[in-house]
């Protein structure tokens, strides 16, 4: 299997990263060498193996559905690159 430039542009679109046209060639080369390395896994027959989904032999704890925090709007908005008093501001979405 190999990744072509079109496929990489498609994946970049999915990942919301714009890719500089001048860099597509070197990116294609790098990603293909990485995937070639990854494909060693195909040597192994894993038909009867259960996938490992958690390294801990316990299920994740759940907490009570109660508010443990709150009234920190100012703190949450503090690091936003663009905001007004109550909201994050983004480029216009609806015409």
């Amino acid at each position, binding site marked *: 299997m190999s*990744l072509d430039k079109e496929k*990489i542009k498609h*994946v*970049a679109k*999915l*990942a*919301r*990263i*714009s*890719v*500089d046209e001048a860099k597509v060639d070197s*990116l294609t080369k*790098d*990603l293909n*060498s*990485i*995937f070639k*390395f*990854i*494909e*060693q*896994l*195909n040597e*192994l027959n*894993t038909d009867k*193996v*259960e*996938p*490992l*989904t*958690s*390294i*801990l032999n316990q299920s*994740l*704890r759940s*907490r009570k559905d109660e508010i443990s925090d709150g009234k*920190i709007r100012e*703190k*949450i908005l*503090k*690091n*936003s*690159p*663009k905001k007004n008093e109550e909201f*994050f501001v*983004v*480029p*216009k*979405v609806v015409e």
Partner: protein
Amino acid sequence: MSNITNQSLSEILEKIKSKKISSLELTQAYIKNIENAKKLNTFVTTTFDQALENAKKFDNKPNNEQLLSGIPLAVKDLFCTENVKTTAGSNILNNFIPSYESTVTKNLWTNGAFLLGKLNCDEFAMGSSNETSFFGNVINPIGDHLVPGGSSGGSSSALAADLTPATIGTDTGGSIRQPASFTGTVGLKPTYGLCSRWGIVAFASSLDQAGPMTKTVTDCAIMLEAMSGFDEKDSTSINKKKETYSKNLKDNIKGLKIGIPKEYRVDNMPKEIDELWEKGKKILKDLGAQLIDISLPHTKYALPTYYIVAPAEASSNLARYDGVRYGYRSQKGKDLIEMYENTRSEGFGDEVKRRILIGTYVLSSGYYDAFYLKAQKVRQLIKKDFDDSFIKVDAILTPSTPSSAFKIGEKTNDPVSMYLNDIFTVPVNLAGLPALSLPAGLDKKGYPLGLQLIGKALDEQKILNIGYAFEKNCGYKNEIKKWWS
């Protein structure tokens, strides 16, 4: 007094507690060293005023009952620190000032330490040489042309150069142990779940684990004791009684069974690494340990597995950087989608983008089974290798890395050769086990080399004990000329 900074944390603590030195004098000594070591590029942010303030506060009202009484510490810039900029080595977080403190750093401060500054690292901890940082590469104090390892390269370099008495890093695939090995220092990756991940900038959540980086094994035990512990805010935190690792350190390892995995003798491994491993085996044997040959048959599949699992989790974790809620935002783009795309393209560096693309691809529709599910199955086999071995042995001894520190720029054009650096460290992360890297010798160029002790889950005390006995009998001493000041 002038040489206080080249002593170990435990020696310094003894001097603070017996009032041979004040916390203020200690802090001033480190600040002086840091100001003279700008060439190493270890610090992204310094918090000197705050540190001096905290030192004075301690001296006025000393509490000597704490694990880290009056100790200034610099930490990797991946730990969120309240009101102190936290960048993760990335342009996308270059203006991020958390309004909260990570649990692990909070634990250090509760035990009497205070912040000296934030240490450079590979961007989002993705790298093995500290060359992917937005803030430039870090230099290894061992030599001006050498990388300090990565991703906790600022941490290893600062520690080895006497810019902090101890430090903490994070280890997703080797990011504590490999830089420790490259700088002749001690590094521990704890069992997954022993130290809280809350407030640490996430890379690959099923692998990430914070741990200590120190000059000695005793220091390592002190730091682990201070930073670990159950945390409600991390859903994978292990709820168990806190251990007193430093008090329980013992150097008697007679009768312990040490596994030697044959698969760690890889092709093209330098002869010096093999000789170092032999030396390590002999030391443990002379101390009364029993060496047992074991097999971890799926070792060679660990790195390919890691390069599916880690990027997949990273692509998901890093989806949060959208230029809306915090971090960098691009001014280019005519709509919301273009704003996202430009923000992420300008905000992330090449290695991070590469890994996001790998992760997005292996999780995308039609490819999930072939890559991600396959990797989860092989991860099971790798874990089983360790489970089977630990029926027979108490700990496993391997080299930490396949080479000593390499030259700056040597591997930047070949991602796979860079990844191969983590060949001995990655299996441990996939299996969630603790592992300790110990300085053990020098290669013929005079660069440090490390050996790794792998333990059973939650068996940190045992590998620390073996490390403690090893350290006493190894005769390794880090002698670094301060060429930078």
